């Protein structure tokens, strides 16, 4: 034995380190409190030193010395194979904008038949083509999307497109896949379901793929997406199905699973052993082998019993009535079940080792899911039983947040994929983890607006902060009646001037009449008054160019442009003929400070579903509820100007431009879409217009019909009706109370009736 030895192991005696070193003998180290190194050296003589002080450091000047010119050549030359953004992506195409080009549909083949393209792939393409990412100019594009359906690459599937390699080779901008993105839900086929087997070489294209594993995924390059089923909606889609937020949740079942098992082959083991966990009481684990043509030949001796148990439970009922839902791997790592559980608010318990969860680089799944290990299947019951009610409460809510913000529709899934890639671009700011994982989420938080959440309305409460002080009054002038002390506009400016919170006044002059002379305006003293003439060309860097023709008139949406002059978080949006007193302005502003993410204002309107017309109705009648607060007299956060201008679908902005109407309704839909909350109406005042100002478009009955039709167009483009009703209004604390008016802070409001 000794003869063969080439290395000897020597146990080092502790001598050179003083006796305290021998911790393995059971001695405790006597460590002096942290002291500067020099001090330790000095005290070395009296023995009270840290034992490691006498050891050499692991690093020396050698590792840090300045480099000779040639040394850097060596590392630059080292070449890596797997793609990364730096090596496989051309950033120069993405400097100014992040635009996506979609290849035209594949040409017909020799037999005259178009290659198949699944409904889901069509939806992906539609979502992109109707989005603000889209460009029809390949030269302007940062990212290219194939016209070839690559979703299903299982060669046994009906949707499998043949001859993809040759089709790719024909693409004019393919360039080995550089700057291309390939969407894929299924790869590989029976029997091994190889994850990398797409049936073509994706080259340097980014894969947006479902069921990816840690090993196959190119870190920081590919994007893991969820598996979604054939009927998945293009946009909007169902909200999360959680209807209550009870604590504790008190569900009938703790953990549930109902699904196929495969008896043999890859991935079958996990599901085959699930019956061990089934107890028929709070754990329901039912599987069936009854699928596929030849299940009888393949069945094992548990199948009959399993099938009986399987038929006793309904899948939907289990989803709704279980606290946790098991999400085991199938043949592939991902399954439909994951999104189904998420939507149902059934907390996913993952049993799919090495699966990269959807959008894992951004979404913190620890807040919405639980991990189990396929190797430790029998521990699953203990794991779920050990989770506290508080944790369940939080997990369950987070499933709904994530579902709603990133997974509810194909559009959201595609946009999220794009935003993840976009954050890798050199000039695009990276959103924090907190933004990604809380409402309203990354898709509605445009990081180009500001680099801190301080300037956004959503996380202020969580950060323990309030909006910045004061507001900017933005008056939109459409008629431009002659300006004199009795003119509504004149009075309005004077009223605003008296407000204690106004920062500056911005008048947007969109009327055909010429701008009034400076001396015509009421004195505003220390409050700056800016008058901006809205000409034919729109203004500001972030302006959308929605132009129907060369002579296109300026859109009424210009009142919501993110003007540089607006320096405050709060915007008070006003029509020129609004009649409000100073107390009303100040009170509404203080209410807004507590709800900075909502529209807070005076003119309330409501939407309703009109069964007779099978359409949405819009009403300005007095009702017990409202869902809209018009921006003719309302406060909102200036971020919404930015979102309105830079995020809304161009289709919506076009509707507003063409009708020269409905911009205020659209702003309400936008804000409710973001917050999932209604606006807030303040005080009793209903009428907010100076009736004297004739010629107002509001007196036109067509105007009203147009608004109704706008509402329906908007709902169609959003894919759902974002407006939400409220039953309450906010009044000053002592409003109409039988106490002396002198004790009331907002006395002018007492005088205003309906």
């Amino acid at each position, binding site marked *: 034995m000794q003869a063969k030895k080439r290395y000897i192991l020597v146990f080092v005696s502790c001598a050179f380190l003083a006796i305290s070193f021998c911790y393995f003998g059971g001695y405790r180290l006597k460590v002096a409190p942290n002291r500067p190194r020099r001090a330790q050296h000095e005290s070395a003589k009296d023995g009270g030193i840290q*034992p490691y002080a006498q050891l050499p450091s692991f690093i020396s000047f050698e590792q840090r010395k300045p480099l000779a010119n040639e040394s850097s050549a060596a590392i630059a030359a080292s070449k890596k194979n797997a793609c990364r953004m730096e090596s496989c992506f051309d950033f120069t195409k993405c400097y100014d904008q992040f635009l996506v080009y979609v290849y035209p549909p594949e040409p017909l083949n020799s037999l005259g038949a178009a290659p198949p393209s699944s409904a889901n792939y069509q939806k992906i393409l539609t979502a992109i083509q109707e989005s603000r990412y889209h460009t029809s100019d390949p030269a302007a594009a940062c990212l290219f999307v194939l016209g070839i359906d690559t979703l299903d690459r299982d060669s046994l599937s009906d949707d499998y497109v043949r001859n993809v390699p040759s089709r790719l080779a024909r693409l004019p901008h393919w360039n080995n896949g550089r700057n291309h993105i390939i969407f894929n839900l299924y790869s590989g086929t029976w029997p091994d379901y190889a994850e990398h087997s797409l049936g073509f070489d994706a080259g340097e294209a980014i894969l947006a793929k479902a069921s990816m594993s840690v090993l196959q995924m190119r870190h920081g390059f590919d994007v893991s997406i969820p598996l979604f089923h054939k009927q998945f909606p293009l946009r909007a889609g169902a909200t999360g199905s959680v209807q209550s937020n009870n604590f504790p949740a008190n569900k009938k079942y703790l953990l549930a699973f109902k699904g196929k098992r495969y008896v043999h082959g890859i991935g079958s083991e996990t599901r085959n052993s699930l019956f061990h966990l089934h107890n028929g009481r709070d754990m329901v684990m039912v599987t069936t082998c009854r699928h596929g043509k030849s299940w009888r030949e393949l069945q094992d001796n548990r199948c009959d019993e399993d099938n009986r148990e399987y038929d006793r439970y309904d899948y939907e009922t289990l989803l709704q009535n279980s606290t946790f839902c098991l999400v085991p791997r199938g043949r592939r790592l991902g399954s439909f079940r994951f999104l189904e559980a998420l939507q149902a608010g059934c907390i996913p318990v993952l049993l799919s080792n090495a699966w990269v969860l959807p959008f894992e680089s951004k979404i913190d799944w620890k807040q919405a899911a639980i991990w189990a290990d396929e190797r430790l299947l029998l521990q699953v019951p203990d794991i779920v039983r050990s989770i506290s009610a508080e944790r369940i409460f939080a997990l369950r809510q987070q499933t709904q947040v994530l579902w709603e913000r990133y997974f509810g529709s194909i559009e959201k899934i595609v946009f999220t994929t794009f935003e993840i890639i976009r954050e890798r671009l050199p000039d695009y700011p990276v959103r924090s983890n907190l933004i990604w994982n809380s409402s309203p989420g990354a898709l509605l938080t445009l990081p180009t607006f500001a680099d801190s959440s301080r300037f956004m309305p959503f996380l202020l409460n969580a950060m323990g902060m309030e909006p910045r002080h004061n507001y900017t009054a933005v008056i939109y002038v459409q008629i431009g009646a002659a300006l004199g002390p009795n003119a509504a506009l004149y009075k309005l400016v004077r009223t605003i001037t008296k407000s204690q919170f106004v920062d500056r006044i911005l008048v947007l002059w969109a009327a055909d009449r010429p701008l009034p002379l400076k001396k015509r305006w009421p004195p505003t003293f220390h409050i700056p008054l800016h008058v901006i003439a809205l000409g034919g060309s729109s203004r500001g860097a972030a302006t959308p160019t929605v132009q129907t023709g060369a002579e296109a008139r300026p859109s009424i949406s210009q009142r919501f442009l993110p003007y540089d002059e607006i320096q405050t978080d709060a915007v008070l949006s006003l029509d020129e003929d609004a009649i409000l007193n100073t107390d009303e302005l100040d009170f509404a502003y203080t209410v807004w400070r507590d709800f900075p993410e909502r529209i807070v204002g005076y003119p309330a309107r409501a939407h309703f579903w009109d069964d007779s017309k099978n359409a949405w109705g819009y009403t300005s009648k007095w009702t017990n509820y409202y869902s809209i607060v018009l921006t003719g007299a309302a406060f909102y956060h200036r971020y919404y100007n930015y979102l309105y201008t830079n995020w809304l679908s161009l289709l919506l902005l076009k509707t507003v431009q063409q009708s020269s109407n409905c911009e205020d309704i659209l702003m309400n839909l936008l804000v409710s879409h973001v917050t999932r909350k209604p606006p807030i109406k303040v005080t009793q005042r209903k009428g907010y217009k100076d009736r004297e100002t004739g010629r107002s478009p509001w007196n036109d009955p067509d105007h009203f019909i147009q608004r109704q039709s706008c509402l329906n167009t908007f709902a169609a483009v959003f894919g759902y009706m974002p407006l939400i009703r409220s039953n309450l209004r906010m009044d000053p604390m002592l409003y109409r109370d039988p106490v002396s008016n002198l004790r009331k802070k907002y006395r002018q409001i007492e005088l205003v009736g309906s």
Partner: protein
Amino acid sequence: MEREVLLHSDTEYRGRNANCTFWDCLNIYKCEHDKLKVYIYPLQEFLDEKSDKVASTLSSEYFQILETVLKSRYYTSNPNEACLFLPSLDLLNQDMFDKHLAGPALSSLNFWDRGENHLIFNMLPGSAPNYNTILDVNIDNAIVLGGGFDSWTYRPGFDVAIPVWSPLVQQISTAPIHNGLHRNYLLVVAQLNILPQHARTFNELKANSAEKILQLGSCGGNEIEARCSSAPHQKRFEYPRILRRGQFCFVGRSLRVGQPDLIEIMSQNCIPVLAIDNFVLPFEDVIDWSLAAVRLRESELHSIIRKLESISSVKILEMQKQVQYLYTNYLKDLKTITITALEIIESRIFPLLARSSRQWNTVNKNSHSTFNPIFLTSLVPKSQGFTAVILTYDRVESLFLLIQKLTVVPSLQSILVIWNNQKKMPPHLSTFPTIAKPLKIIQTRENKLSNRFYPYPEIETEAILTIDDDIIMLTSDELDFGYEVWREFPDHIVGFPSRIHVWDNSTMRWHYESEWTNQISMVLTGAAFHHKYWSHMYTYAMPGDIKHWVDEHMNCEDIAMNFLVANLTNNPPIKVTPRKKFKCPECTNTEMLSADLNHMRERSACIDRFSKIYGRMPLRTVEFRADPVLFRDNFPEKLKRYNDIGSL
């Protein structure tokens, strides 16, 4: 004492298993105990038999790492109960060990088994000329806790990226470095081994913005603790102290991707700017570096000034705070680094113990930031109704009257009577008014105010209406409307009697007010709606001794609830409708009726006491109340949803 181990003679170089994942290279069966246990091999020296060369000498840093593990909750001296194994062979710096000896030395370890479940700490991998980003040793299936990963060598979910330690940091005094915008330079570049082409870029940038960049190099010799500006006006600066002069400090790629400069920069509370493509940042799995660092691609270096100048001052302050937070919590010494690395591995093996990204990255101290546990607040069309929880002692007559009033409220789901009297049995259920809604009586074991907030399993709704047995004046419309308001603000306390706290400058204390004022900051739980979750928090998670104190003194449970909710949400309560009288039409003030000045004084003292316990005043003052949309409107009654509202 000398121990001998037989070693394999074939030492073919395999490196490591690049395909390792947590799911196949980590033997999870060794970790089935409920805690992570780490075994440390005895300290040994490995010598080449022929040449007597040592495989590696122990460094001070590795000693500290071993010592940290040894003293941590993770340590076990029993290899049979260990989940992970930590060799005592120092592999921190590849320049300092013999890579031909290290492999055989590792495989000679008793439990090596191709590295399964072994931890390898390494900060400086690779060696000339190509400087691999992973150490060139046969480590097979071992987990690498490495400071020099790029995204190709890092195995996500398996390895852990750690910082490269700098001994200079150890000498820094612990005195806090103040945040602020007043730093002399936008950017300090003081890395010695910066790439020559990067240095050239900075020289070019300096031509236009010399006052913004401080570029420093070596002062000659092997000195690390000083940096010098370039000739002809060479100036000498103490390093890393000089980094305090910069808003941002630069770390770039060098021969290795991981550099000790990062930690030095953060120790000086300077915001790191990294230009190292595909470098895996320390603890990247859990730390959100976007909050504390700026990254730019190496090829974008020329735009660094423009990019840094576009960062707002608010963001800079936030990042400075975050740098300080990350440094003190995860990076400040080898002990912290080691424990953080182990915690990351622990959270992979026991995912239930894992902290969320928010918990890893939120600066909590001395700030009012909070996490509202009720964050799913979107309104659902279907309503569950509310459970009325009535706290009563012996006022049976009033209780029955209240029950009769409550039962006609459409949104009432059920009533729970909490009988807080132990001397007397509650009246028999048959004597109660017959009502169409479920009613239950619970007799408590002790007359405690906190019984009102116990999360009884009998409460099946989200919403609880806590109501005193003598609050008989609220109308059905008012209660129904109050519940509707709560549905719109389910994370707030929504109710009827309101109060305000004010700061008294003469006594320098908080003062409690029950006058009718323009402002409120509390809604009393004598008649208020709240989410059942708050009852749970009140019962099980109230800070300090507040709960106990309230039960002792039989007072202030409502104030305590307002503090609790305000502190967790930063939200104000919501007062509903103008009603200010609750017990009888003649009563002038609900509180003055039951109590004297002493009572008020005690309540002021409560506010004072609670705000000290919370370390802040969480209550928020508002000037609004919620009324029905058509309140006081001249409108046909039958079309109004809530009519009976408003009489005081």
